[in-house]
């Protein structure tokens, strides 16, 4: 695992990834275990009508009468995207800004490795790490669905997990890019976190404010979650998330290449 920077970076993430994976499996397990008792509620539909209209729309509550709709409302409308975003931002800021603040970046740079090579290997490790968490989500969804008869197809589990990976990776790349441009971990967290919150606010506000409806497609949350994500298939709008991620890294690259590298602080 020390053969190159990509593997070393993955190695650095093995503990975090293991912990997050365990948490994710437990979360899916608990929600799935709830499903049989929810579906057995005799007057579920009447109960749901009691919710205010905006809430019903936001969490797509009408669909809760199916297992897939239940998981969309409970996990995929906010909790899972937030978890994937937090995971990816947490890894993303460490890749360059974290090494720079720790003081280990200098030695990495004074090697035959170029700044572009360094950034791309770090990016690859981030992508693999977030994808691995997505794979854990996929497997636990399929497994739990079978165990508790939630009724999530493997295809739906795959596209739902992909949506989480893509929205997480986009924000992780933003954190990586801001960290590479500024060398400051705190700033990278702030910027990436703010963009995530802004994206969510835009997504939600557009549900209620007609004037904002046209802007909604700009939100990564819309791109990842609209009409699902479980059961929404593989919409073309997914492509915006990896495109944005790549664009962010491409913007960061020349700046990182030219700027001064800070000493440990």
């Amino acid at each position, binding site marked *: 695992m*020390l*053969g*190159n*920077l990509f593997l*070393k970076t993955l190695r*650095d993430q093995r503990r975090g990834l293991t912990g997050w994976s365990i948490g994710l499996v437990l979360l899916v397990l608990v929600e799935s275990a709830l499903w049989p008792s929810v579906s057995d509620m005799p007057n579920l539909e009447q109960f749901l009508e009691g919710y205010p209209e905006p809430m019903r729309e936001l969490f797509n509550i009408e669909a809760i009468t199916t297992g897939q709709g239940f998981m969309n409302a409970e996990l995929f409308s906010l909790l899972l995207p937030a978890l994937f975003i937090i995971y990816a931002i947490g890894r993303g800021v460490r890749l360059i800004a974290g090494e720079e603040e*720790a*003081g*280990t970046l*200098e*030695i*990495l*740079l*004074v*090697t*035959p*490795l*170029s700044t572009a090579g360094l950034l791309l290997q770090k990016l690859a490790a981030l992508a693999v790490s977030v994808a691995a968490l997505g794979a854990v989500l996929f497997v636990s969804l399929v497994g739990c669905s079978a165990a508790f008869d939630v009724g999530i197809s493997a295809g739906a589990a795959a596209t739902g997990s992909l949506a989480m990976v893509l929205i997480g990776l986009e924000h992780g790349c933003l954190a990586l890019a801001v960290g590479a441009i500024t060398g400051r971990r705190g700033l990278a967290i702030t910027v990436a976190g703010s963009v995530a919150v802004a994206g969510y606010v835009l997504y939600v506000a557009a549900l209620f404010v007609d004037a904002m409806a046209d802007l909604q497609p700009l939100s990564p949350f819309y791109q990842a979650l609209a009409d699902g994500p479980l059961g929404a298939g593989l919409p073309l709008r997914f492509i915006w998330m990896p495109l944005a991620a790549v664009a962010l890294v491409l913007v960061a690259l020349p700046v990182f290449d*030219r*700027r*001064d*590298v800070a*000493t*440990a602080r």
Partner: protein
Amino acid sequence: MDPAIRTSALTKRYGKRLALRGVDLEVPAGVVFGYLGPNGAGKTTTIKILAGLLRQTSGRSEILGMDTVAERDRVQRHVGYLPGEFVAYPDLTGDQYFRFLGNLRGLPASGVVPRLAKRLGLDLDQRIGTLSHGNRQKVGIVQAFMHDPEVLILDEPTSGLDPLVQREFLALVREARDAGRTVFLSSHVLSEVEAVADVVAILSEGEVVVTQSVDEMKQQAVRQIDLVFTSEPPLAALRGAAGVRDVTSTGMTAHVVVEGETTELLRVAAPHGVTNIVTHEPDLEEIFLAYYAPAR
């Protein structure tokens, strides 16, 4: 043949502050070059520009004839670099760390690292996070030397090392030079540089105030020596000795400021019964102020 290191009119500005004001250096290959100056003079800034970690505001810097900006990655291939504040991954052992760096630098597995570690007394199986400051500095030295680079750029390399290890380190530097490598090392302690360098440049407030051979420097270095006598110090005789620039006394102790060799001073003082001699390491700022400033 290109000099190993050359800078011309190297300037670095941080916001309003000018850290380097037109530094010109020329370091021939196969030389140990001491880069001296008080803290904050711009030593680290120069070194980081040479290592390709900072970009100069203006001027040129070259290593082995290659521009450190335009050909940075090629330059970095040939450089061993020890930062002023060296930090390695605390969760790795020395062995893992050097294997990782060896892979990054494309080195074949060899006995070089264990040999260097043994000479410096570094335990390769211990996690770097649990090492003392001095032992972490040894890790930094090993990583700078392990790929036998043509140019070694070392920022305050002996900080935190005990005297025995310092001596071993200086031996490594001499061996590297004897093998034709070029060593550029910074320090704020004259004696450390005197012991190993062939040529010294003194930096003050971002400018090189003098570049000369260590032998010349020793001739001109101004030191303060306290001589403790058995009776009243013979002030007049001491003042007359060659190289003495100033003499004051408190009780039985004469405080003598002497330039260059101390042979003559000691010859004059000895017959008067000297019980103790304390020599003070010349402060660089003092050398600069006391000697070079009037000559400029």
